[in-house]
């Protein structure tokens, strides 16, 4: 509980419309897209960098741990409040400060939702490549904090590759700018890269300079349907070996084909083993050859049907199915645990086997969604959170999947981050030396862990 005095001080900074302390409000900011929850003691909405800096300075004085938050679509608990914490929600900092297409940059406040930026860029014929599945809801600040990926990473990379500069309120409340409108604007170290993906533990990002690109001249979206997951993974390997880097190679298994189709009603064959959504882009004159080659490779892998979308609307429907498939599993079981393990592409079939084995071992349905080109899996373990026994099994399955991915030379997190959900498994992936290096980084920015305490790594007082 915040005292009336503290509420009064915070209100003086942000105004009465930008502070929430009632019970319902605290409850509404007590969750993200994971199953965990923890109510904060207050929520404040800075409307400017000055607000944010004043809030951080004040919270330091008042001894309040701060938790940065955007839209709260986080999948690792990174934006989840901790005990006795003040949520600093950037959702109302949504201004686009500049779109400078000729210099390939956009400068934004970080509460702006990814999709809302894309809509503005579209008017200029530009786009911002990183578009996580949540892009209609998630803020750019959240994307930056988690270094979000999305379906286009295979060709275009992740959030890290599109952040040129940041304005950051340090845990002390002081404001710095890292990077700039150009590559090579960094002072001494590439702090921009360190801040991207730091899950709000190193600084509160308030503005970002993003790299934007002109929309590709042309693209082709293909749908390949297979009887078996193995056939789909063969296609993936063959396409890469043939020297084609598609923007997208998305895979769904039978379970997800069914739930996605129930939501979007594409008329997909419900008995298919897997499907791949394949997209290539570039110059119009190059694409037919690539499509022909891809079709050959699909045929070689015993594809059941292969189809090129004939209109943008048709392609959009496929993408809608893909983007909403995670939520659509709610049609099977109410809860899901979503992993983002990532493995070297060549071990794709082994990871599929491992997931199927895990499903049998714990008697839990697991849907397999994968950014196949990236080796990035989203196994969706389905259960009911009200069934205590199932929850225990889910927890075990999660660890097993992480162990499996690590055994195949992968990582436990390809795009969702560590947050609190995977913190306890950190030592499965990293040596003590690496974890200590993480602590050095954290201490350099936030020696008393005032910002997003308890996420990624814990630090003891320095001395």
């Amino acid at each position, binding site marked *: 509980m915040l005292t009336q005095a503290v509420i009064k001080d915070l209100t003086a900074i942000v105004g009465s419309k930008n502070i929430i302390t009632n019970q319902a409000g605290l409850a509404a900011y007590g969750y993200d897209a994971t199953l965990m929850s923890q109510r904060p003691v207050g929520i404040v909405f800075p409307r400017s960098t000055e607000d944010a800096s004043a809030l951080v300075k004040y919270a330091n004085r008042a001894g309040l741990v701060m938790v940065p938050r955007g839209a709260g679509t986080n999948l690792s608990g990174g934006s989840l409040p901790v005990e006795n914490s003040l949520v600093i929600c950037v959702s109302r900092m949504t201004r686009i400060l500049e779109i400078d297409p000729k210099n390939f940059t956009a400068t934004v406040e970080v509460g702006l939702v990814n999709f809302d930026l894309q809509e503005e860029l579209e008017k200029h014929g530009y786009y911002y490549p990183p578009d996580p599945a949540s892009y209609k*809801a998630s803020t750019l600040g959240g994307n930056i904090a988690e270094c979000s990926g999305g379906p286009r990473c295979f060709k275009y990379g992740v959030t890290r590759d599109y952040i040129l500069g940041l304005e950051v309120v340090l845990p002390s409340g002081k404001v710095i700018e890292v990077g700039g409108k150009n590559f090579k604007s960094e002072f001494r170290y590439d702090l921009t890269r360190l801040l991207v993906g730091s899950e709000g533990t190193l600084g509160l990002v308030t503005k970002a300079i993003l790299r934007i690109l002109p929309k590709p001249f042309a693209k082709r979206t293909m749908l390949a349907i297979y009887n078996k997951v193995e056939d789909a993974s063969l296609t993936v390997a063959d396409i890469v070996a043939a020297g084609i880097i598609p923007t997208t190679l998305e895979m769904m298994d039978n379970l997800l084909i069914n739930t996605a189709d129930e939501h979007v009603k594409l008329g997909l064959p419900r008995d298919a083993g897997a499907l791949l959504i394949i997209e290539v882009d570039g110059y119009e004159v190059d694409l037919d050859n690539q499509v022909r080659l891809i079709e050959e490779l699909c045929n070689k892998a015993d594809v059941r049907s292969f189809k090129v979308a004939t209109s943008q609307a048709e392609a959009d429907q496929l993408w809608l199915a893909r983007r909403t498939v995670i939520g659509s599993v709610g049609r099977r079981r109410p809860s899901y645990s979503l992993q983002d393990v990532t493995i070297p592409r060549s071990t794709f079939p082994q990871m599929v086997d491992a997931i199927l084995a895990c499903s049998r071992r714990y008697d839990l349905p697991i849907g397999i969604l994968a950014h196949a080109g990236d080796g990035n899996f989203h196994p969706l373990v389905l259960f009911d959170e009200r069934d205590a026994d199932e929850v225990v099994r889910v927890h075990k399955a999660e660890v097993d999947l992480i162990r499996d991915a690590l055994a195949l030379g992968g990582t436990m997190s390809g795009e969702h981050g560590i947050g609190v959900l995977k913190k306890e498994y950190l030592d499965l992936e990293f040596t003590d030396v690496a974890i200590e290096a993480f602590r050095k980084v954290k201490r350099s920015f936030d020696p008393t862990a005032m910002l997003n305490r308890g996420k990624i790594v814990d630090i003891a007082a320095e001395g």
Partner: protein
Amino acid sequence: MAKEGKKSSTLDEVIKELYLCNKCGFCQTACKVYKTDLNESFSARGRVQLIKGVAEGRLPVDEGFRDAVNSCLLCQECAVACPSGVKPHELVLAARRYMQQTEGLPLDKKIILGTLADPFRRKVAFSTARFLRNNVSNRIEGFNELKGIDVRGMPIDKVGFIDQVPELNKAQASKGRVGFFVGCFINHSLAKTGHAIVKVLNKNAIDVVVPKKQLCCGTPQNAYGDFELAKKNARKNIRLFKDLDAVVTGCGSCGAMLKKEYLHLFADEPEFLPEVEAFAQKIFDFSAYVMHEIKLDPEKFKVFNHKVTYHDGCHMARGLKITKEPREILKSIPRIEYVELREADRCCGAAGLFQSYFYEIAKDISRQKVQNIENTGADIIVTGCPACVHRIQGSLRLAGKEQKVVHLADLLAEAYQ
């Protein structure tokens, strides 16, 4: 006073659906209130989670909860966006029902809902409003709006439409007959639209029956959980139109209530349900009726040199699922230049009582609508819902804009001249 949320039967019925929400947040972008206020409690996901909290007894029903639940537009966008198939607006209705049952409606709402449900009180209320507007507020310099509602520009008819027309409005060489469910807004403040509907139907050789005793459809009462009052009127309406094979509505909200919500309302009365179903079957929105049942002949329209856009009312688009018909009808009028409106099917900010209880958010939502309209360059905005006509016209007027907002029937009636 806050009451500890006890498990209630109303919320128990929806607990399964509450658990379906896996908090992905995809509904945030669909929730116009959230997109405007950017506060999680005022988002579809937030409301669902808070309702779940109350259903499980973890949260009290307090001011914050009531605001969250009452801030819903019931526009149903979230249900379309939800991959898991949750229908947050239904959960909101359940929560409002729960609040109505456990703590009763607040006095202001009780009076408003009761007034709308009673034809006599309704008549008196509208006349009083008209009197106050003409004799008090209009005489105050600068008094243009009340909480974002265009008071000066709001038409209130002296005599209601139902009292202006005979029960039977015969066409020349009639080929068929429909009932006309008028609804409160057309009756009291858009009589001209009522006449337009009759005219277009008559022009197409359809007799129009306007039963004099028809009552409020029940949308306002249903929206705030007073199912008993809604049912009382519904029962009378169903019986009143019993002898007609088709009933036309000129309001998306009335239409959706009669065609869809009555079925929910009477779900617990299996013996009466067949009668409700039969009633629902014969409800047609004006646009659907003229397009599918009459099959308008565009040859008969005069040339219409206007740039026109269309706004979908929430209940029209997602309640009745009517989006194609009005557009196709508009495009069929010779020389009309039709432009699509960005976010055409997003709420205009009216949403019944929402506009007066959450007027700041409502004003923002309407501002966005006005901006989108500006961007189309259209000079006429067509819609199928009287409440939207008023809200959008009022917001345009308050923003100093010249564009006209009309009901589809108004435009067609003019095209027949």
